[in-house]
């Protein structure tokens, strides 16, 4: 009996829900909330689940009763009634009242999601195809966060790391107990920043700023993913938030600021081919590889090959310009001048001109990029 089976399923669902362990990876329910917003959403969902579940049981129960009792095979004689104004008014008004009862807490939850004022710190989040950039606006530093688990492409059975697809090289480190305001935007297409345990999902829209907020209760690692289809590697731009106690966070921030001060490259430094090529390979794998591939062969029809490309093997200036300013013809090729340092751009171009079947032997020095940046204003 279809109804019996479905009632069974939903009954199991409810039992599992009500007893769900609030672990990090809840199998049948929302992830364990780690912020007041997430808790609000969790409780609201639980309430809705009970209300809708009971309505379903009621509706299917009545139908099941009719199916069992009012059937021809039991020689049940059909009545002929076909309207009853009272009943019809009742089953219009009762759902309305239920909805009103739901609307009250739902409205309060929306309003608290939207109250982004009174923040302790502000992070600007920029979505790129296919990575996130985090800027700590109060402290004037920032970094890009890439997927760091290996891309398999292999058959199943290969051992995958525990946090496969949910690990990044540079997590967003934040203090607990502080109201964090997010300003979100994107560089190319729409992305969406979603960390379930923090109760935040907000689209990042190119050319516009949107805001959201949260305050993390306790230290921990919170993981999420981009949740708006943003092209080929939509599934490969995870989000990791590393929440630390305010003291640990302050230590991390100071170290980070010190590191930023010493690590800045001197754009006037002259590099050797080997050193630039080595650095360029790293820059390439973090930024260029998803489209142009490790082999430099690209993806025919979508992303052009660099191995043997006339641009990469031809005039240096044209190569510089397309990397720095992006491609007019193909918007997927971004303007990397806005994203990478002079040294990184010099390194990656040097790498591309001396990798795979390309053997130009040319070295592009950071000073050349610096000059281009100067001339472009």
């Amino acid at each position, binding site marked *: 009996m279809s109804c019996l089976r479905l009632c069974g399923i939903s009954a199991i669902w409810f039992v599992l829900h009500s007893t769900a362990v609030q672990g990090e990876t809840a199998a049948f329910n929302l992830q364990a909330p780690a912020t007041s917003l997430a808790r609000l959403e969790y409780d609201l969902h639980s309430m809705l689940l009970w209300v809708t579940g009971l309505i379903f049981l009621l509706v299917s129960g009545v139908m099941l009763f009719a*199916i069992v009792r009012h059937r021809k095979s039991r020689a049940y004689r059909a009545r002929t009634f*076909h309207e009853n104004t009272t009943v019809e008014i009742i089953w219009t008004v009762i759902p309305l009242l239920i909805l009103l009862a739901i*609307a009250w807490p739902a409205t309060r939850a929306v309003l608290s999601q939207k109250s982004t004022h009174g923040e302790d710190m502000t992070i600007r989040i920029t979505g790129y195809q296919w990575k996130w950039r985090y800027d700590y606006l109060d402290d004037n530093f920032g970094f890009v966060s890439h997927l760091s688990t290996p891309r398999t492409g292999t058959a199943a059975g290969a051992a995958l790391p525990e946090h496969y697809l949910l690990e990044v090289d540079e997590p967003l480190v934040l203090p607990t107990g502080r109201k964090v305001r997010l300003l979100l935007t994107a560089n190319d297409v729409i992305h969406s920043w979603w960390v379930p345990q923090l109760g935040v999902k907000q689209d990042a829209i190119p050319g516009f700023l949107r*805001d959201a907020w949260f305050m993390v209760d306790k230290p921990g690692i919170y993981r999420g*993913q981009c949740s708006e289809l943003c092209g080929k*590697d*939509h599934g490969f731009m995870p989000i990791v938030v590393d929440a630390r106690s305010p003291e640990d966070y302050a230590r991390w921030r100071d170290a980070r600021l010190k590191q930023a001060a010493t690590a800045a490259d001197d754009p006037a430094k002259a590099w050797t081919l080997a050193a630039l090529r080595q650095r360029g390979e790293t820059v390439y794998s973090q930024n260029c590889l998803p489209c142009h591939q490790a082999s430099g062969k690209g993806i025919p029809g*979508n992303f052009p090959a660099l191995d043997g490309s006339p641009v990469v093997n031809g005039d240096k200036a044209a190569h510089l310009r397309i990397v720095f300013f992006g491609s007019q013809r*193909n918007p997927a090729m971004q303007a990397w001048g806005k994203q990478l340092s002079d040294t990184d751009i010099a390194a990656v171009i040097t790498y591309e001109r001396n990798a795979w079947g390309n053997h130009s032997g040319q070295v592009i020095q950071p000073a050349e990029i610096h000059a281009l940046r100067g001339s472009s204003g």
Partner: protein
Amino acid sequence: MDLASNTAHGMVSAHKPQGLARWLFATNHKDIGSMYLWFAFCMFLVGGVLALCIRAELFSPGLQFFQPELFNQLTTLHGLIMVFGAIMPAFTGLANWMLPLMIGAPDMAFARMNNWSFWLLPPAMTLLLLSFIVPGGAAAAGWTLYAPLSVQLGMGMDLTIFAIHILGISSIMGAINIVVTIINLRAPGMRMMNMPMFAWASLITAYLIIAVMPVLAGAVTMVLADRHFGSHFFNAAGGGDPVLYQHVFWFFGHPEVYIMALPAFGIVSQVIPTFARKPLFGYSSMVYATSSIGVLSFMVWAHHMFVTGMPATAQLFFMYATMLIAVPTGVKVFNWIATMWQGSMSFETPMLFAIGFILLFTIGGLSGVTLSVAAVDVQLHGSYYVVAHFHYVLVAGALFSLFSAVYYWFPKMTGRMYVERLGQLHFWWSLLWFNVTFFPMHFLGLAGMPRRIPDYALQFTDFNRIASIGAFMFGLGQLIFLVNILYSLRHGKTAPQQPWEGANTLEWQIPTPAPYHSFNPPPQLETAENGVVLSMRDSGQA
């Protein structure tokens, strides 16, 4: 009431054109209806194969069969083909076949336009499928084709835009035909408030199609202009706004949901009374509920955009308006159950699919209420929960109702009975594996799995496995349907004029199979609610 000897009612089977010309130059509503239905079924199989490709890739974490760029093409085309190639043409086909028979019209109002609205479909779908082999492959921005991603893609996107334009023209012409037929060609005595619910549902659906297909055309034309003609509708640097696309798309997209749901409501409102042997409960409230769903469907579009960052007031407006839709939808479900209540039910295949529809559509409706609450939607938007929700509404909703309709009217269309045991098997098989496929997706979404990803984190493995197994079994089960139809077309038992004891609408008053030309001239009718025929006599003009 019994009108077995029927030549007096304009029932003529002669003068049937033969060969290819019969189909190519078809103007007969029954021929065109059959073509629509076969076309829709072929597209259902194509879209189904794409779905199985998706489920095969998602059987295990890691990339096994398809690279991400191809995976995105598969999800996009699966959606587009199922919506525009399978479900919508199937409903139009049923309306073509049954509407004239249910309201006593000789044919559809514009017979030649009818021909054209069908014959636009194959070229449009060919364009869509061809786009797989052009450089860069098919459109890969999801069936919603969100800008700016859709501005980035290769020429497959241009083919898709062109295909959507053609499909839109086809749908609009089909809809105009339905509206004019219903308004103008009802037989004398068939008042609007006596029409079968299926006619009402088709009428309201047709108005929705006419209202929103041009909006979709506008949206994709703006994408085309941004791609090739240097406009900046969706580019902030040029003064545009990417979110504008979403507003325009969903102003089409939400009524589109009801374009795929209202005809299903109509079918179920015919099938349930027949097999409960009891008149439809609350006919006029059904008409009002269906109309108000149609009107409300224009006021809720931004509930698809709760995480774009709308102001709180807009969030609240669209949340309240969306929740409100639950009221008329609830009325419909309650009315169906009240129709079954104290009826004398039997459970042939059409009835089983109709009951399955009510049960599973209710689940989809209730998860819709959950999604309508903006604060909760923040967690569920763009997750597998949404995938579960709309498959409950579209597969268990639209598709199940279509199966119900085909089994229900198969005897009238072909003159033969389908094989009941195979039909029952098809139902139970579909019901079981549908739930195995889509119920776990609720859990996946709640646990945080985004939709439209080709690869996933390890904690999502188990439910994805279950869903993939379910999908393959569900797909296999549809072959039962195909076998049943093909076998019964030739070898099925000869059907009587009224194969269902409780069927009393107009289409059951004419011979089986329905003659090639019917109701020319139209009969004089006396009808009751929901198209029930009380008496019918020749108008005497023949």
